[in-house]
């Protein structure tokens, strides 16, 4: 990452001025690089610190959902449990199966983890608190986020294991299916904000976009959950069907990196949902903006865990049918509705915003209702009762 991209960043400028003050004049040329590396290290450590916290949070909350306590042994409230898990994984033997394609097998965890680290770069954690403000931010998310699937497919392919390959193929199929509604719901957001930069998207929301585009939010969060392979769409590692999916053959810290990447992608995905649909770091002034972002982030993460705790895993054909038959028409309806509204009210005031919001909620309800009816939903309770069995005993024989 070249320092020039970073120069708009206030955090970077502070670190830059600090470093140029510390360094002697003869070395002032490298100050930019040092500052860039420092801020990259900082953001990378955000991932590495928040992800274990998220793992702990998820296990505790999931435990409470199931009337358990969750990990509470090591550290206060069990906070050090992820560290204990990591130490356990590091100590474990690293097994490479004989049939594995060794270079690919070894490269897969890194390639899976890298996109997550890259994606965190464009999340605006607060006003003036982001690594880089790319003017193609949304495109960047979609492009880089898709790379994860390459890592998954490499892992599944190189393992030399049918279960692993099956999981990897499922992952690719899900990516192909869910990328379409995801991008279409994002297109509606881009129509509204007129910019691909995430900072601009946050700034140009008059109210959190979830109030204006409920259908888009629904499609986006569903597709994001599917893209990050979380329950109820976690069938690429469905324990009951294919042993552990693409990481069946992995052990030790490689498996740990897979897990870390998976949870980190949830953290990052929740960050995008917060930025795009919940107006990111905006909030009332009595709390600093990163706190607002964190609160919204936590709420989104909680919802994702809640969904995981509730819904059972869907079948492969159901996943595909859900994406193509249900989410895709919904996202198309959303896109058309938003486009029409933007044509009707190019610069909406508060009255128009009320109209747009209410209309979109109505459209969401009608669209979901109509689509569910059209997709062959049967009303089982209204089914006519079965004919009673003929009483052959009391009938006359002749």
């Amino acid at each position, binding site marked *: 990452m070249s320092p020039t991209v970073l120069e708009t960043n206030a955090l970077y400028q502070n670190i830059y001025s600090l470093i140029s003050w510390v360094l002697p004049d003869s070395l002032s040329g490298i100050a930019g690089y040092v500052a860039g590396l420092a801020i990259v290290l900082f953001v990378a450590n955000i991932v590495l610190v928040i992800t274990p916290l998220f793992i702990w949070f998820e296990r505790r909350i999931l435990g*409470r*959902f199931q*009337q*358990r306590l969750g990990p509470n042994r090591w550290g206060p409230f069990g906070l050090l449990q992820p560290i204990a898990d990591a130490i356990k994984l590091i100590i474990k033997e690293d097994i490479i199966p004989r049939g594995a394609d060794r270079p690919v097998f070894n490269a897969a965890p890194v390639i899976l983890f890298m996109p997550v680290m890259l994606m965190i770069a464009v999340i605006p954690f607060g006003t003036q608190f982001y690594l880089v403000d790319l003017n193609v931010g949304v495109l960047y998310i979609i492009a880089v986020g898709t790379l994860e699937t390459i890592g998954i497919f490499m892992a599944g392919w190189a393992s030399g294991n049918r279960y692993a390959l099956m999981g990897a193929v499922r992952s690719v199929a899900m990516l192909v299916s869910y990328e379409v509604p995801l991008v279409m719901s994002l297109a509606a957001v881009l129509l509204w904000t007129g910019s691909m930069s995430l900072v601009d998207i946050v700034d140009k929301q008059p109210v959190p976009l979830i109030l204006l585009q409920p259908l888009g939010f629904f499609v986006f969060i569903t597709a994001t959950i599917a893209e990050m392979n979380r329950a109820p769409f976690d069938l690429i590692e469905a324990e009951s069907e294919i042993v552990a999916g693409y990481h069946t053959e992995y052990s030790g810290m490689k498996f740990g990196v897979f897990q870390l990447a998976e949870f980190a992608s949830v953290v990052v995905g929740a960050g995008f949902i917060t930025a795009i649909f919940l107006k990111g770091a905006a909030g009332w002034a009595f709390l600093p903006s990163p706190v607002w972002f964190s609160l919204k982030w936590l709420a989104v993460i909680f919802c994702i865990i809640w*969904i995981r705790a509730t819904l059972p895993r869907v079948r492969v054909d159901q996943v595909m049918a859900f994406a193509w038959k249900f989410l895709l028409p919904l996202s198309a309806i959303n896109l058309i509705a938003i486009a029409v509204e933007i044509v009707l009210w190019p610069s909406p005031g508060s009255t128009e915003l009320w109209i747009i919001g209410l209309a979109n909620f109505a459209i969401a309800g009608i669209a979901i209702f109509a689509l*569910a009816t059209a997709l062959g939903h049967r009303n089982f309770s209204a089914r006519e009762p079965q004919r009673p069995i003929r009483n052959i005993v009391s009938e006359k024989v002749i």
Partner: protein
Amino acid sequence: MYGIGIAKGLIVTLKNLFRTPSTVQYPEERVEQHSRFRGQEFSWYEERCTGCASCAKYCPLGIIEIVTDPSKQAMADGDKYAIEKFDIDIGRCMYCGLCVEACPYDALFMGSGFERARYTRSELFIPMEELKNATKRPSTWFRPQLEDKGYDPQSGQPLGWKEVGRHEAPDYEAMRRRWADR
């Protein structure tokens, strides 16, 4: 239908979130047992035991080994067999409690513990010395006299041999109350 089922499910899980967890954190807390719980350590009172070996005869698995020796005392002084051996191999015990039912002198009780798991089978053997010296918290299983006292082996004090017997036969009214009127 129309996602209503999903919403209902979400509400169900949300209710569970605010319930008290049912986990019992074992080393610090223990599951509460009924006072009639048939535990692993037997409570045996040497003072009450006559060495009649009823328990050993009734044991379906034959895991109680008793060796006795006639003592040299006169019958009038309360003669009884000297017990040389009273070993229970709980590794094969099925905790049916027939030995306790069989004991005519209330000398053998089911235990109240559940923590006598061991790594080897041979350690599951309870020799007489251990039975003699153990802290005795007998289960009230098949021992109504303990239950009448309201004795709870989990929380109560260890009992000595004088406190566990049926010292006097219950009167008619008490018998009727216990067995007929309930």
